[in-house]
């Protein structure tokens, strides 16, 4: 139960492990990430929509890339974050890591969903159909399914502790599987049909298109951090509601 006899780890690690400390530190980090997220996303949006040049083939429809690519990237990073913090939660029995994993799942799923939706919307004008069974699309779809599985498992379990253990195991298994999926899907697709859609391989985009994309990607990361922190803090409060410091905090707010 207790962390006392666990392998030696840096001190900050255990400090982070204390929900109280984590609540405080995230409290100070939150405004930083929030402002950064808003600033970057607004800049990125304005730049992307008004100033970035049109694509010579696709006209304005290409601008959806500024949502599509960041969300696709995020969906994958969030999965890794989730699986790793789940592993930390299992190995070192750190509650906060469990909570991080828990808060990641829905955010990651919505990113995967966003990537799919924007991709589908984009696909209609460029490929002439909402959906094709291309390798990338398929592996993103499977990622979404993995997220769904994890969320379904969460909601099926009653107790947060057991739910955290179980979903951590599942997301780790999924993590091992992700490279296999990517590999299998790539291979499967190239065997069956020659690459019809080579858009993803077209020459690197011009720098004035690429820069706003970078801004958007960083902005999305900051947004993820913000969203995660907000959910995490909520989660800490509900799960630690019995402890003295939360009770104190709550009465202070009530007043």
């Amino acid at each position, binding site marked *: *139960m207790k962390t006392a*006899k666990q392998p030696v780890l840096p001190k900050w690690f255990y400090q982070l492990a204390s929900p109280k400390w984590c609540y405080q530190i995230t409290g100070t980090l939150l405004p930083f990430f929030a402002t950064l997220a808003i600033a970057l996303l607004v800049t990125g949006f304005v730049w992307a929509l008004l100033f970035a040049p049109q694509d010579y083939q696709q006209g304005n429809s290409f601008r959806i890339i500024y949502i599509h690519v960041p969300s696709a990237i995020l969906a994958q990073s969030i999965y890794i974050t989730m699986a790793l913090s789940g592993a930390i939660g299992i190995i070192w029995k750190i509650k906060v890591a469990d909570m991080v994993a828990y808060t990641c799942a829905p955010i990651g799923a919505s990113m995967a969903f966003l990537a799919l939706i924007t991709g589908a919307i984009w696909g209609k004008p460029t490929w002439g159909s909402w959906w094709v069974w291309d390798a990338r699309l398929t592996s993103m779809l499977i990622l979404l399914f993995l997220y769904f599985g994890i969320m379904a498992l969460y909601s099926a379990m009653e*107790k947060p*502790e057991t739910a955290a253990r179980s979903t951590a195991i599942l997301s780790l298994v999924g993590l091992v599987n992700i490279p296999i999926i990517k590999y299998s899907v790539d291979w499967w697709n190239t065997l069956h049909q020659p690459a019809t859609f080579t858009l993803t391989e077209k020459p690197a985009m011009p720098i004035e298109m690429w820069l706003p994309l970078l801004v958007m990607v960083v902005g999305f990361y900051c947004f993820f951090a913000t969203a995660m922190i907000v959910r995490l803090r909520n989660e800490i409060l509900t799960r630690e509601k*019995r402890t003295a410091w939360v009770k104190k905090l709550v009465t202070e707010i009530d007043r």
Partner: protein
Amino acid sequence: MHPRLLNITELYCERDDRILFENLSFQLEQGQIIHLIGKNGSGKTSLLRILAGLYQGYEGQVEYLGQTLAEVRAAYNRALLYVGHNLSVKSGLSARENLTWYTKIQPQLDADLIDSALKKVGLQYFADVECQNLSAGQKRRVNLARLFMLPAANFANTVWILDEPFTAIDIEGVANIEEHIASYVSGGGAVILTTHQPLQMNAAVSKICLDNLGT
């Protein structure tokens, strides 16, 4: 003289926002029988599952021979027999097959004692009937037969955790098991059990009451 088999310190357990017990400390020593009493819902099963290492939702320390359960998991499992609310009997197998399987997964049980154990729980004529065709009490007897399969020479330092073992057992059967428990503890074992019926034991029984230990 009386080594402490289990040492429980400052146990705290909460379920459904209700504290079942806090600051609960006691020892289970060789030769001791602890009868856990308390109203329905007072936390007896929860406590026994914690002691068996089957429930983790607690705070505090549970030590077996001076080491925490996590550290001596395998040794503790070899020393432990747990009888829970569940039947723990495969209904598709016969009594004998069930017990044979038990001797494999719990090597402290002796396969040579199966026949005598079946006889002691009154199932000698039902040894090869599939358990789904047994009555409620007979099914429980199959599980309890394990208590008769521990060689007497190995009683020392072992622990039995019995959660309402007498459910569905008839009067004669209860007396028989009580007698066996008494001889087990006199051989160096230790028992913690719950039952709502009064015990008629030929041995000293200490009681721990879980009512009013929490909120």
